[in-house]
C-alpha cells in the first residue's frame, strides 16, 4: 500500500493550511480534494477576517487574491417597507493589518492550495475520498475509488457535512436544528457602480449584514462588495426553512426584492449561484477534535462563529489547521499518533484568541432561536423611526413614546431589553 506521513482530506482553508504547515516541516503530505480545482464548489459569503490569518500567512493581502478591504460595515434591519441601519466606518480597517477582506473562494482556495504545493505537499484534486480506513478503532488511511493509501495520521478537513467521520462511526448524525443553509449569488457589476453605491474607493469595500425580509424564516442576509461583483446571500435555519415549505431560492429572491437590497444589486447579472449547509456554529456544538490516527480541523470540527450577525469560519479553519499541524509534529516527535498524543491540539486551540472569541459569543447563538429578531424587530425599528420622522398633524412624540406605541401588544419592555442585550453580544465590528 502506498503511504504518506500525513493525508489531508479536503483543500479548503483548513486542509490547504494543514498541508502547507506539515510539508514545511518536511513531512511527506498528500492533500486530496474532490473538486476539479480547489474552491470550485465552496461557498462562503466571503469575508476573510484578517487578524488570525495574517499570523499564518504574513501580509497575505500583498499576495493572496483578495477583493476589497472592508472599511464599512452596516447592520440593517429590514422591515417590510422600511430599513433601519447601523453604519460603521473605520479608516483603520483600510490599512494594515486590516480587519477583513472580501474574497471569492474560487480564487482564494486555489491560492491557498498553491501555498501548500509550493511547500512540498502533493495536491491531488478531482478525487473524492470515499472512506477513512479504520482498523481497531484507529484511522490508518483513506479509500478513494479502488485505491487505499496509508498514513500515520489523517487530517479530516472535509467541511460541514462531515460525511467521512459519520460513515466511519466517529461522529453522530447532524441535528437539523444545528444546521443552516446558505444560498448565495455572485452578481456582476462594474467597479465604478459598486464604488458609487457603497461609497467606497477602488481598494475598499462594504459589508452589509441584514436581518429580516427572509419571509419569517429564521436567518439573515448579507451583501459583500467584491472588485467587480457583489456576493449576496441568505443563511437560514434548516428546520425553519422546511417548516415554511419554501424553496431556498425563493427566500433569496424575496430578500433581493426588498427595496434596499434591490437598489444595491440593481442592473447586475447573476453569474454564479451556490448553496451549502453551514453549522450554526455554537460553542455548544463543539465536537471531538482528535482520535487515534486522526485530527479534525475547520468546519468539519464545527469550528465556526455563526450567529446571524457574524459568520466567521475561514479564519477559524486556518487557525485550527495550524494548531492541528503543530500537534501532529509533536506526536511525531513522541513517535505515536494516539488520541492522547494528538490531544495537544485541543489544548493549543483553546489558547488561541479566536477560541476565546468563540466562547465570548456563546450567548449570542440564541439569536438564531429568537423569532422576534426576524419578524418583529425589523418592522418595529422601522415603525418607531417612521413615527419619529414623519411630519403629521399629531404633536411630535419622543422616541420612547414612539417605541411604546409600536410595541403595544407585541412584546414587553423586559423582552425587548433582554433581546437587545443578546444582540449586543452577538456583534463583532
Amino acid at each position: 500500500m502506498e503511504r504518506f506521513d500525513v493525508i489531508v482530506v479536503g483543500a479548503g482553508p483548513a486542509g490547504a493550511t494543514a498541508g502547507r504547515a506539515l510539508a514545511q516541516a518536511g513531512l511527506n503530505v498528500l492533500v486530496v480534494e474532490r473538486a476539479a480545482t480547489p474552491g470550485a464548489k465552496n461557498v462562503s459569503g466571503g469575508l476573510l477576517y484578517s487578524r488570525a490569518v495574517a499570523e499564518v500567512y504574513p501580509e497575505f493581502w500583498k499576495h493572496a487574491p483578495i477583493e476589497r478591504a472592508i472599511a464599512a460595515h452596516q447592520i440593517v434591519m429590514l422591515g417590510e417597507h422600511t430599513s433601519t441601519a447601523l453604519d460603521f466606518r473605520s479608516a483603520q480597517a483600510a490599512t494594515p493589518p486590516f480587519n477583513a477582506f472580501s474574497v471569492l473562494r474560487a480564487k482564494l482556495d486555489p491560492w491557498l492550495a498553491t501555498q501548500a504545493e509550493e511547500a512540498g505537499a502533493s495536491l491531488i484534486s478531482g478525487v473524492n475520498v470515499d472512506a477513512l480506513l479504520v482498523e481497531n478503532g484507529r484511522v490508518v488511511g483513506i479509500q478513494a475509488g479502488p485505491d487505499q493509501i496509508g498514513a500515520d495520521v489523517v487530517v479530516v478537513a472535509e467541511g460541514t457535512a462531515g460525511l467521512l467521520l459519520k460513515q466511519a462511526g466517529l461522529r453522530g448524525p447532524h441535528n437539523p436544528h444545528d444546521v443552516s443553509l446558505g444560498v448565495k449569488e455572485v452578481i456582476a457589476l462594474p467597479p465604478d457602480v459598486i464604488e458609487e453605491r457603497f461609497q467606497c474607493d477602488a481598494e475598499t469595500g462594504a459589508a452589509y449584514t441584514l436581518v429580516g425580509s427572509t419571509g419569517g424564516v429564521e436567518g439573515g442576509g448579507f451583501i459583500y462588495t467584491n472588485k467587480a461583483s457583489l456576493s449576496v446571500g441568505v443563511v437560514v435555519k434548516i428546520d425553519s426553512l422546511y417548516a415554511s415549505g419554501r424553496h431556498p431560492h425563493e427566500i433569496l429572491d424575496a430578500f433581493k426584492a426588498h427595496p434596499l437590497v434591490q437598489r444595491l444589486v440593481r442592473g447586475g447579472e447573476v453569474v454564479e449561484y451556490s448553496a451549502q449547509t453551514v453549522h450554526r456554529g455554537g460553542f455548544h456544538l463543539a465536537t471531538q477534535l482528535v482520535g487515534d490516527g486522526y485530527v479534525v480541523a475547520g468546519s468539519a470540527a464545527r469550528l465556526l462563529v455563526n450567529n446571524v450577525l457574524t459568520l466567521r469560519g475561514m479564519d477559524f479553519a486556518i487557525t485550527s489547521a495550524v494548531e492541528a499541524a503543530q500537534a501532529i509534529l509533536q506526536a511525531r516527535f513522541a513517535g505515536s499518533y494516539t488520541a492522547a498524543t494528538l490531544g495537544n491540539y485541543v489544548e493549543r486551540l483553546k489558547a488561541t484568541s479566536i477560541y476565546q472569541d468563540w466562547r465570548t459569543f456563546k450567548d449570542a447563538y440564541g439569536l438564531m432561536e429568537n423569532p422576534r429578531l426576524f419578524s418583529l424587530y425589523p418592522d418595529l425599528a422601522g415603525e418607531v423611526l417612521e413615527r419619529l420622522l414623519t411630519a403629521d398633524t399629531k404633536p411630535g412624540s419622543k422616541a420612547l413614546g414612539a417605541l411604546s406605541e409600536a410595541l403595544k401588544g407585541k412584546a414587553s419592555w423586559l423582552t425587548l431589553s433582554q433581546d437587545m442585550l443578546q444582540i449586543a453580544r452577538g456583534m463583532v465590528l
Partner: protein
Amino acid sequence: MNIVALVKYSRDVTEIKVDPATSELRTAGVPERVGLIDKNVVEAAVRLKEATGAGLKVIALAPATARDSFKDVLAMGVDEVVLIEDPFDGEAEAGIVVRLLEAAIRKLDPVDVVLCGFASDDGYSFQVGPRLAERLRRPLLAYARGITPEGGGLRVEQNLDDRMQTVTAPLPALVSIDEEAFPPRRTTLMDALKAKKKPVNVWGIETELGLSRADLESSARIADTRLTGVVVRRQQRVLKGQDLGAMADELIDALEQAGVLKGAA
C-alpha cells in the same frame, strides 16, 4: 511504436454569453480546458497504447499557464505532454495551427500514429485531421469508432454520413476520432499520483520548433475576423409557483395564444 495525440485547449462554449443589447460576445471568464472531444482522443490513444505497448505523447497548443490542465490527461495514461506555447493566444487560424502541429510532430519523429478529434469543442470546424494529412502526406482514417492494430498497420471502423465503413492503412497514419466514440475513463487517485511524476514540457515556437512568427503570420489567409453573438429572440416567459394546475393552464393559454393549440370546436 510511438503514438501522438493532439489535444486542444478549448473554450467551454456553453458558457459563452451574448449581450442582448449589443450582440457582443462575452468570452471573458469562459473556462478553457482540454476539450471533451479531445478527452475521447486521449482515451483512444491510451487504449491503443495498452494494446501495443507503444509510447504515448500529447501535443497541445495552449498558454504556458495551462500546464496544470493536463493532469487529467497524464493520469489517463499519457507518458508526456508537449505544450506548444501559443504565441497567438488561441486566435490563430487553423492553417497556422496545423503548421505548428506539423513541426512538433516532425520533431518527435518517428511517430507512427497521430490521433486527433474529428473537430474541436469550440471551433468545431473539422479541419485539423484532413489538413495535417495533406501536410504530412500520411493516410487519414477519419471518424474512427474502433481502432485495431493489424498486420503492422491499423484497421479502423469509420462512422460516415450514410454508412459504417471499415478501412485499413499502413503506418505511419493519422486517425481522427468520431463524436463520443471513446468515452474517457475515470482516473483514480493512484493514476493522479503517478501523473505528478510525468513531465509537461513547454516548447517555444521559435526555440524548439524553429519557426518564425513572422513567417507564420504571413501564411495567414484571413485578413480580419469580426465576431458577433447570436441574440435569442424568444419571449422568455417563466411560470413558477406551487399550483401546478394553474401553471398548466397558463402554459395551455400561452400555446393557444401562439396558435399552437385550439379549443374544442
